[in-house]
């Protein structure tokens, strides 16, 4: 279990309960960014939670912040909270001031470009160069939107020729940064699976066919039982990654292994949960006005982000 105790998670829970009811992700996708939600998160310092005090942040515990990320994901958070947290963590490690507003991140390796989550809705991109350890802050004007599975949108960011606003060196390795990013996504994915499971249970408990609620059909029960088992496994994998990250907060490199395990485990279970979730919902779950797709589309997008489960399985097998 990801702990959602502590002040940071509780504040986050309160803000989302107040300012992110189910209409908000819908409106965000229609182009109406929830400025009030974002401003409140920022005013409460949540975007700076992983920034050290000397750089103007709160130096919060890894695990407390992951609890907040869990809560945001369960609300289908339509703002780049996790992305900004990661971006600011990177800046902090390079001794740089946090981003001014909404930010996202990119890991630069041999590729000339990167796919940026939430890329259409952020002001700045923080890149980490895996070869040099350099962190750089780029302006994100005119992002190149891509067709995306995620409701959050994705853009493609080409590194060369872009103006660097500030930059600095870190002693972080690629494994360090991957450990953080993969763990954050694992927590979000596990939270998303559990939220979508909850929606599915509610739906089959209310909907009738053939004079019975759907929940009374053994085929429905067993589909959701399998999905629940995969969702529980995802939460375990995320929790193990989170524990390992918390134990290596100073430099997360040793947490890389558990983070990759979580990526592989959870990535491979996406089909095993999204297929039954959609199936038990029937056509209703396929409509834009219903909430399920806020969860399933994020799962589809996140499993591919930064390499899909097949890629990371090879990496993990090679490291074993």
């Amino acid at each position: 279990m990801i702990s959602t105790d502590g002040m940071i998670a509780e504040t986050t829970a309160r803000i989302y309960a107040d300012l992110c009811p189910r209409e908000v992700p819908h409106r965000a996708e229609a182009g109406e960014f929830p400025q009030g939600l974002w401003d409140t998160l920022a005013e409460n310092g949540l975007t700076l939670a992983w920034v050290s005090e000397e750089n103007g942040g709160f130096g919060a515990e890894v695990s407390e912040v992951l609890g907040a990320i869990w809560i945001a994901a369960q609300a289908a958070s339509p703002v780049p909270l996790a992305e900004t947290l990661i971006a600011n963590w990177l800046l902090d490690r390079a001794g740089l001031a946090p981003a001014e507003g909404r930010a996202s991140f990119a890991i630069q390796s041999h590729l000339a470009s990167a796919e940026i989550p939430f890329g259409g809705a952020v002001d700045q991109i923080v890149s980490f160069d895996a070869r040099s350890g350099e962190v750089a802050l780029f302006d994100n004007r005119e992002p190149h939107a891509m067709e995306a599975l995620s409701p959050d949108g994705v853009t493609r960011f080409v590194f060369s020729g872009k103006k660097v606003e500030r930059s600095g060196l870190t002693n972080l390795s690629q494994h360090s940064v991957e450990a953080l990013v993969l763990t954050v996504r694992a927590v979000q994915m596990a939270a998303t699976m559990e939220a979508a499971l909850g929606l599915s249970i509610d739906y089959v408990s209310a909907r009738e066919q053939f004079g019975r609620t759907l929940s009374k059909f053994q085929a429905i029960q067993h589909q959701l039982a399998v999905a629940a088992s995969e969702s529980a496994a995802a939460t375990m994998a995320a929790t193990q990654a989170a524990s390992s990250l918390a134990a290596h907060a100073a430099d997360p490199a040793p947490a890389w292994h558990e983070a990759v395990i979580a990526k592989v485990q959870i990535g491979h279970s996406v089909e095993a949960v999204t297929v039954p979730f959609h199936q038990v919902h029937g056509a209703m779950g396929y409509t834009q006005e219903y909430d399920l797709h806020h969860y399933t589309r994020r799962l589809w997008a996140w499993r591919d982000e930064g390499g899909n489960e097949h890629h990371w399985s090879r990496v993990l097998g090679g490291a074993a």
Partner: protein
Amino acid sequence: MQRFRFPVIAPDPALEELRAELQQFLRSERAAGTFQPEPECWMASSDPEFSQKMGRRGWIGLTWSSQYGGHDKTALERYIVTEEMLRAGAPVAAHWIADRQHAPMLIEHGTEAQKLDILPRIAAGTCYFAIGLSEPGAGSDLANVKTRAEKVEGGWRVSGQKIWSSGAHICHYMVALLRTSPADGRNRHVGLSQIMIDLKAPGVTVKPITDLSGDAHFNEVYFDNVLVPDDALLGEEGGGWKQVTGELAMERSGPERFLSSYVTLESALHDLKDRMTGESLARLGRLVASLRTLRGMSWGIAQLLHQGVSPETEAALVKDLGNRLENDLTQQVRAMMSDIPNDEWSPAMHRILNIGILRSPPNTLRGGTTEVMRGITARQLGLR
């Protein structure tokens, strides 16, 4: 014993000529930029102009008489046309359902006047039909339809609501399953009839439903005392249930049940070319085997249908296997594409894979859910 009937058909060279002609047409249309290949094109990719082009080439209405604008060809020739359109991911959704389903229905049940009026327009690719089965309270449990048609002087008055009617916003007609008399106690299958409704008639309101992929081909269709003439009743009054289950069985075995994601595989092979690893070759081999096997089953059923036999269970098997294959195909392609960095993917690959994933959920719902398919098979096995 052999439990199911799936004849194996020897290849027919005449059909291969037709296939070559179709491929030539599709290649030149793609080259001209008329369309971009898309998965699930028969449901979600509409282009009336493309449909009209097909109509001009004689590729709609293949099987019916030239007297009604048809082309006097066989069901197997029609099969080749549908197969090539699906393989190409062509924008055929506008006319697909009318050609597949409603034209045969009109031929069987329509008046001479209706046939002369409507069939030539369907064959020309200008007249489209929507299916009117589901209602908010009647999904898998189709016998629960509540939309009523009341007999009045010279026709029927229709009131109620249909939902998930694909294409209704561009269609000219809907054939709806309606309650024309009350259920007989617990037997809800009686008192249902199929009625053709002009979607431009007063009292009809069509409201698109946007789906999670951003497409808006589904619709809610409301009927507020819509008056339709006597000859709108297709088939027998009260015979709707039997007619509908017969049609469903026919549709379930077509190539749209296993070729709808084929373009995804083709796109991946194009991007990977000579970079196929042993793993990707194995994935390809497995898909080739499944596609070939399902094609054999589907084609065998087409042959039976051609002979007037309607094998309900075999069709349910094809649909269930085909749905599994299509989901598997998309996942196998995701795995194959992980062999190359994603900035070496073509833009088309990104697009096709995204569309394929986003359009996949309804596969196992439309035309009968997986649960309904397995129930049909279980009944044939003697388990229920």
